[in-house]
């Protein structure tokens, strides 16, 4: 008879479960906090807590594969002479060369371009590979200003001023020494092999009044052609959205706390910011209050995985969504194909989150030439394009079910919430009721 696992009858502490005990012992052993990639892993209220009501006696659905359901999005209609025209409402979020290998960045560009959407640079500047392979490329202006230059600013299709990101609102970038190759170091004007702690504040502006002037400078330098985005980590989203509008944004990107990162303290990832679900609703309410909804476009990111997530974000009022971790997974991140190597790194496919470490067996989050050479940017790009098509098809399926001939025509009225928390956060009724918790309370 096989021996019974004694943990089946031993009582585990809810306060000190094995994972917490392991964390405490790791801290005691190393004297440093845990730094990792990926995004928040704790359970949070998500779009899964909402459902679509679908057409019924009072609504007509549209025929799948027959009746059109458009998915195009225009970003930057407020001030830019050349707004971005996307074919699908899903964009690729900013991820740096440095955090990712050059072929992985190339694959993101290839995949996005194949389906007519944009990709985004990251903290480390623009590489030739990603510009060449990205039909539409958004250039990030980050506090570090690594690699920032006016030529790339003008070569970009849009500019994204990064105030914060969902994984760490209030935190700066981090790229540990093991990933600072000669090329990364040169692009960032820093010595090879040292830890790079990107600043958490911009060097030449503080506060929304300064930011308005900064954005005017960026517009002057680029002759008012490029849409200017402002990206914020979700926290005080209602007010931040209003201030971003006042600062002159064409597009606002709100990144919820499930948003990914290449390297951040675990305590930051799991304990700072608010989930994407309430963030999208707060941003939309702020835009509506200012009569700027659809005039300043809203991109929502942070834990978007499926067409259902896309559709629900759009129904709540977003113009588009952005994906990061999901795009990396589509490229092959956490693939069981590499299980043996994941095991050697002390992890397993499905759990790997050490993007900061540089030893990614898939060749995606690494600067090792040997590992990066494993990754085929053409195949990776095709996988990403496939995934983006599936997200779009799923989104259209749900929109048609609600009788909508454009994905932007979905609305909160098409949704119901499965939990009281989700009903309160998204301000849609709890399923089977007309109860919206907190409806009579101030919106923010």
């Amino acid at each position: 008879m096989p021996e019974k696992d004694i943990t089946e009858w031993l009582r585990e502490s809810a306060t000190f479960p094995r994972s917490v005990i392991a964390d405490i012992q790791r801290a005691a052993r190393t004297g440093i906090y845990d730094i990792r990639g990926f995004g928040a892993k704790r359970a949070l209220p998500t779009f899964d807590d909402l459902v679509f009501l679908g057409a019924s006696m009072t609504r007509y659905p549209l025929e799948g594969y027959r009746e059109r359901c458009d998915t195009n999005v225009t970003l930057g209609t407020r001030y830019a002479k050349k707004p971005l025209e996307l074919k699908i409402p899903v964009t690729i979020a900013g991820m740096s060369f440095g955090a990712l290998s050059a072929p992985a960045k190339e694959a993101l560009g290839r995949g996005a371009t194949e389906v007519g959407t944009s990709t985004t640079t990251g903290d480390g500047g623009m590489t030739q590979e990603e510009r060449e392979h990205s039909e539409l490329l958004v250039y990030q202006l980050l506090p570090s200003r690594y690699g920032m230059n006016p030529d790339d600013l003008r070569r970009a299709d849009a500019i994204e001023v990064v105030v914060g990101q969902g994984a760490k609102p209030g935190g700066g970038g981090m790229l540990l020494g093991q990933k600072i190759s000669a090329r990364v170091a040169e692009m960032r004007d820093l010595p090879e092999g040292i830890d790079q702690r990107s600043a958490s504040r911009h060097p030449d502006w503080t506060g929304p009044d300064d930011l308005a002037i900064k954005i005017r400078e960026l517009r002057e330098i680029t002759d008012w052609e490029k849409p200017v985005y402002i990206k914020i980590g979700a926290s005080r989203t209602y007010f931040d959205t209003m201030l971003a509008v006042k600062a002159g944004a064409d597009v606002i990107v709100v990144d919820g706390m499930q948003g990914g990162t290449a390297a951040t303290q675990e305590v930051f990832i799991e304990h700072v910011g608010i989930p994407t679900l309430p963030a999208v609703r707060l941003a939309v309410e702020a835009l509506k209050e200012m009569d700027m909804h659809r005039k300043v476009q809203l991109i929502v990111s942070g834990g978007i995985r499926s067409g259902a997530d896309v559709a629900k974000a759009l129904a709540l009022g977003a113009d588009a969504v952005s994906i990061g971790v999901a795009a990396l997974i589509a490229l092959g991140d956490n693939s069981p194909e590499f299980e043996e190597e994941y095991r050697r790194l002390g992890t397993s496919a499905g759990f790997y989150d050490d993007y900061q470490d540089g030893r990614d067996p898939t060749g995606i989050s690494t600067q090792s030439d040997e590992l990066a050479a494993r990754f085929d940017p053409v195949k990776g790009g095709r996988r990403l394009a496939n995934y983006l098509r599936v997200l779009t098809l799923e989104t259209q399926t749900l929109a048609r079910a609600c009788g909508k001939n454009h994905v932007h025509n979905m609305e909160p009225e098409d949704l119901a919430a499965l939990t009281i928390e989700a009903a309160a956060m998204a301000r849609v009724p709890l399923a089977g009721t007309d109860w919206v918790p907190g409806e009579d309370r101030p919106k923010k």
Partner: protein
Amino acid sequence: MLGTGTGDGLQLEPLKQMRVFNLDEVSLRELNQALHDCNGSDEASAWTVTNTKGKHAVAAGIDAPLEVTVNGHVGYYCAGMNKQGQVTIRGNTGPGVAENMMSGLVRVTGNASQYAGASAHGGLLVIEGDAGSRCGISMKGVDIVVRGSIGHMGAFMAQKGRLVICGDAGTALGDSLYEARIYVKGKVAGLGADCVEKPMAEEHERELEQLLEQAGINGVDAAGFRRYGSARKLYHFNVDNVDAY
């Protein structure tokens, strides 16, 4: 007035065309667009801008060896992201003058507010008066010469390039410094994390003399400066340095 002229008595080389932009009569957009229309060329024409009245982003985004004289005080980000341009501001500048400059020369005859030369990658920024706080913040290869004094947190997180201060420096000079070099003639109110004084060798004295000469700073003896740089103790996280974090 938009046209050609001699521009406030500026001495011109023969045959060089002078273009004058009076910002009371033409918009900032028109000025910057006209400057950008020269981008990528080797045109070295002379330009004068008048009635600036504290406007922001004056002459931002130049990418040609234009000689631009700005007569008057300017607001934020004057000569921002300058490439090749030779810009002289006859007055004071607001925050972020020559921010992210790539090459060329920006000269301020008066005082500069905070963030002067922020994250600039190259070129030379000369401030003939004083500079405010965070002068040279995040600098990435630019040379900055200040004839007067600077405020607090000068060269914060500075990565590359040289910052020369002929007067005094405020508190937390060179905080979290990388490989940039700082030379100070006067008093330093205090050094930031990981910034230390380093010996002045002959090579540093020569470097300093060259910088002062390039900047056209006369009457300041290269002798008597002190050099500051990174102790490089914070380049890798080390729990033993936790008191500094």
